[in-house]
């Protein structure tokens, strides 16, 4: 985080962070190719022991929350709105984590694929829908002062994708 300049620390410390990051990268075998057995073994050990992720939870700042809304269009022109559905609160918490992942994905094709999968799960509940538009956005919270003035959270549009799914189960087509 320090090396990437995500913190409020001075630039001089950023360079120190870069050096430390370089040493760690080397120690963890991350300089090797992905197919290198040593790197794969070290990475597997990190995952198996639960130490691969670091411990900067909610740090240095709290990330935004995100919202996904599906706009379902039917053959008669009717439109309905739907949210991704899970049954339990625990899964809801995980869904929120998934949205965080979608928001930080830099590879547009992967983001589209993730949203397509979510749209497909919504389409399975509404198979008569001819088109599903997945609208992904960010929830901006008011500051304490703004909240005292009675301001509510606002929604900032980020991405929208249109998907149409063939009636044949399992076949997905997007445009």
């Amino acid at each position: 985080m320090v090396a990437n300049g995500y913190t409020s620390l001075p630039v001089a410390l950023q360079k120190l962070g870069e050096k430390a990051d370089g040493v760690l990268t080397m120690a963890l075998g991350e300089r090797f190719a992905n197919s290198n057995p040593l790197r794969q073994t070290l990475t597997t050990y990190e995952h198996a022991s639960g130490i691969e992720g670091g411990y900067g939870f909610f740090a240095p700042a709290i990330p935004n929350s995100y919202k996904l809304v599906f706009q379902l269009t039917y053959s008669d022109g009717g439109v309905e709105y739907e949210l991704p559905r899970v049954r339990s609160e625990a899964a809801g918490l995980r869904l929120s984590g998934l949205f965080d992942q979608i928001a930080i994905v830099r590879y547009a094709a992967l983001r589209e694929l993730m949203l397509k999968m979510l749209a497909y799960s919504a389409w399975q509940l509404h198979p008569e829908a001819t088109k599903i538009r997945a609208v992904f956005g960010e929830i901006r919270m008011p500051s304490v002062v703004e909240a005292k003035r009675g301001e509510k959270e606002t929604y900032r549009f980020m991405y929208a994708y249109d998907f149409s799914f063939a009636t044949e189960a399992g076949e997905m087509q997007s445009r």
Partner: protein
Amino acid sequence: MTTARQRLNEFLFPASSDTWLIVLRVGLAIQVILCTLSLRSDWNYLFRANGNGIISRDLTEAILNVDSPIIPRVGWLVAIGAYFGLSEETVLWTVWIALFFTGWLLLLGLFCRITAVTAWLLHLCAVKSAGLMTYGMDNFTTLGLFYLAIAPLPNHYSLDRWIWKSKNQDPHLLGFFRRVLQVHVCIIYFFSGLAKSTGAGWWNGTSLWRSLRLPPYDVLPSQLVVTFAPVLPAMGIAVCLLEICYPIFIWPNKTRFIWLLVICGMHIAIAVTMGLYLFALIMIVLNLAAFGPWAGRKQRDTTNLAVQKVSLRFVRNPVRSLIGIIS
């Protein structure tokens, strides 16, 4: 030089009772049981492949392959099941049931070693195959189960001990594993606190405000959080200080209990105000196992000779020693 080595030995291999391990085993058992129960209604939906889950397992496991193709995953279990003619749905439910039962077996202390390894492996598979939907709690549960799987088992208050009358574990080995956990917990808090303190939001209360107001953590009513807004900067700074200073104040006997109490209080507050109950539980379990009031209680065998014997065995052949403990 000898004194330094002796001190290092004494630090790494203190004599310890197995009470901390009982806390870890029982705590993790409750964690596994509650975790599986909380996801019961969505379990298959989270892990299905071929576009039939909320986010297809194929995608998560393909992303996992970029890291390493040898990380355990649910896909392997589904493939094994398919070989025996079992459907994906059946295998996924079997994994859920197996994880749930290993939780109960851990709680009872029956077949401790096999159960601990199975719970760790199944949990790891589930966490990795749902990698896009995991959070800190999953990592800490994996971490706890990993320590439990390699720790000297069985311990007291387990059916294993009662049925097979197994003898006491070496107190220095118990101490060594406890020490590793203690150091790891210190590293976790130190870096967590350090990372927080580098962000301005933890000093001016913004981060606490956002953590209490952003969905899905907005458990408290908005008006209540607004009322307590003036104390949020102080609370944010207190969280940073508590975590950064954890490795300093958790070791001395004089400050250990109060620091442990405050840290556990912080996790209870996180559970109540943000709804992160399972995250709070696993952190409290790790803290109590590492630094609980029983942490310093020693068994009879505390001679320096025994310390040296065990530590020398480790220094000469750590791999064989660890395999010996596990088997």
